[in-house]
């Protein structure tokens, strides 16, 4: 079956929104940073927790994709996306229009909160850039919009430096990869050390700086492509889960040979993304009903296609710091 993609209109929308608002979907910045307010994280510090907004954006991207996929094939989608560019000037309106499920928005906040707590419990103090926690521009890079990406990368770097960063802690595979492996060739004098929170946490657990607790007894792990093949962050999540007492089951295609969730094409080809996700879910289901994911894009795309009733959880929903004396197992 053939349908048409509003490719050009989509690219222009993503580019303009990222350049003007700092996010690929125009939203008010408090949507991105409000999760951190209750934690009272400092604004300045040499170690900065940088989320790149991906966790927070995914619920909105998901509803955008729902619109696009309902329209896949009709010419309306082009027109609509062109009109949508008006939205870039009115982020609040976008938020209202996209109206993602509140539970999804809440979930992203909970995950980030837990990540920050896990870092603190490991003895890694960190600051947070709040309204400067901008999107890293991954999509622009992936879609070949290099000039726009270079501009975004430069801006993100400057902002992080303004907050005093010399080390940046990232929380998802895409942002980690783009900062660690791509920014250096787009940003003159790039000098930030980029570490991923799973690396920090697995080291802390190994050195017994933190005691972890798991909220499920076993789960099948879905390695994200970017951790597994671009960053070789493979053993870290396994160590963390095992130290938390979670038995890790391996799907047929795992580690370096992992199979993509389909997420990267969800805006360009939503139906294709779903088919890939369904294929992966079947494979995961052979091992367990609990699926641990490590990336917000994997979570969104697998959840959208989850017709098998699997329980899909982010690793930061499965693992938490054990507070001494709280009477946990062991």
């Amino acid at each position, binding site marked *: *079956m053939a349908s048409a993609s509003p490719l050009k209109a989509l690219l222009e929308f993503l580019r303009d929104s990222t350049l003007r608002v700092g996010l690929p979907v125009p939203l008010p910045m408090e949507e991105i940073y409000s999760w951190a307010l209750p934690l009272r994280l400092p604004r300045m510090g040499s170690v900065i927790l940088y989320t790149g907004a991906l966790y927070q954006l995914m619920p909105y991207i998901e509803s955008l994709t729902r619109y696009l996929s309902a329209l896949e094939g009709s010419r309306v989608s082009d027109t609509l996306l062109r009109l949508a560019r008006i939205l870039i000037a009115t982020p609040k309106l976008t938020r209202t229009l996209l109206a993602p499920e509140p539970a999804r928005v809440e979930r992203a906040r909970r995950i980030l909160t837990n990540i920050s707590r896990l870092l603190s419990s490991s003895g890694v103090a960190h600051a947070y850039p709040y309204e400067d926690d901008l999107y890293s521009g991954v999509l622009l890079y992936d879609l*070949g919009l290099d000039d726009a990406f270079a501009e975004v990368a430069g801006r993100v770097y400057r902002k992080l430096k303004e907050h005093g960063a010399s080390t940046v802690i990232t929380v998802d595979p895409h942002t980690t990869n783009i900062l660690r492996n791509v920014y250096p060739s787009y940003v003159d004098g790039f000098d930030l050390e980029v570490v991923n929170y799973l690396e920090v946490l697995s080291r802390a657990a190994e050195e017994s700086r933190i005691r972890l607790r798991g909220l499920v007894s076993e789960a099948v792990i879905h390695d994200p*492509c970017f951790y597994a*093949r671009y960053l070789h962050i493979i053993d870290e999540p396994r160590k963390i889960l095992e130290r938390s007492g979670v038995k890790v089951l391996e799907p047929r295609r795992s580690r370096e040979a992992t199979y993509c969730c389909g997420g990267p094409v969800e805006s360009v080809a939503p139906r294709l993304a779903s088919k*890939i996700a369904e*294929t*992966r879910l079947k494979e995961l289901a052979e091992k367990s009903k609990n699926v641990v994911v490590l990336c917000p894009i994997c979570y969104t795309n697998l959840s959208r296609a989850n017709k098998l009733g699997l329980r899909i959880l982010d690793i930061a929903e499965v693992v938490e710091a054990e507070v001494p004396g709280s009477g946990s197992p062991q």
Partner: protein
Amino acid sequence: MEPGEAASFILREYSKCMSCGFCEAACPTLPFGPHRGYGPRGRVRLASLAVENGSISAEGVAGIYTCLLCAACMLRCPAGVDIVGVVRLARELLARGAIRAPERIPLRLVG
């Protein structure tokens, strides 16, 4: 990257490709695509054709933009072709207008 550099990168990587198809075994998009353009062996060839011709058909564009950049293919390639790099740079050339392409892109799925 400069368009000229991107173009020669694509041609060089394609010249390494033996067309053995081993990469296709790992590709998640290929089984749902209508033809080889939705898989790595096809994408590398499409990109090099586009550079040679200065233009690409809508069917070719669909192949280039449906790639997940997941790099599963590269693990299998005996010739070490940078498939992901080729696809991304082809997109860059398309975005810059260095390769001409139709506006509307058909997306076909099978299965």
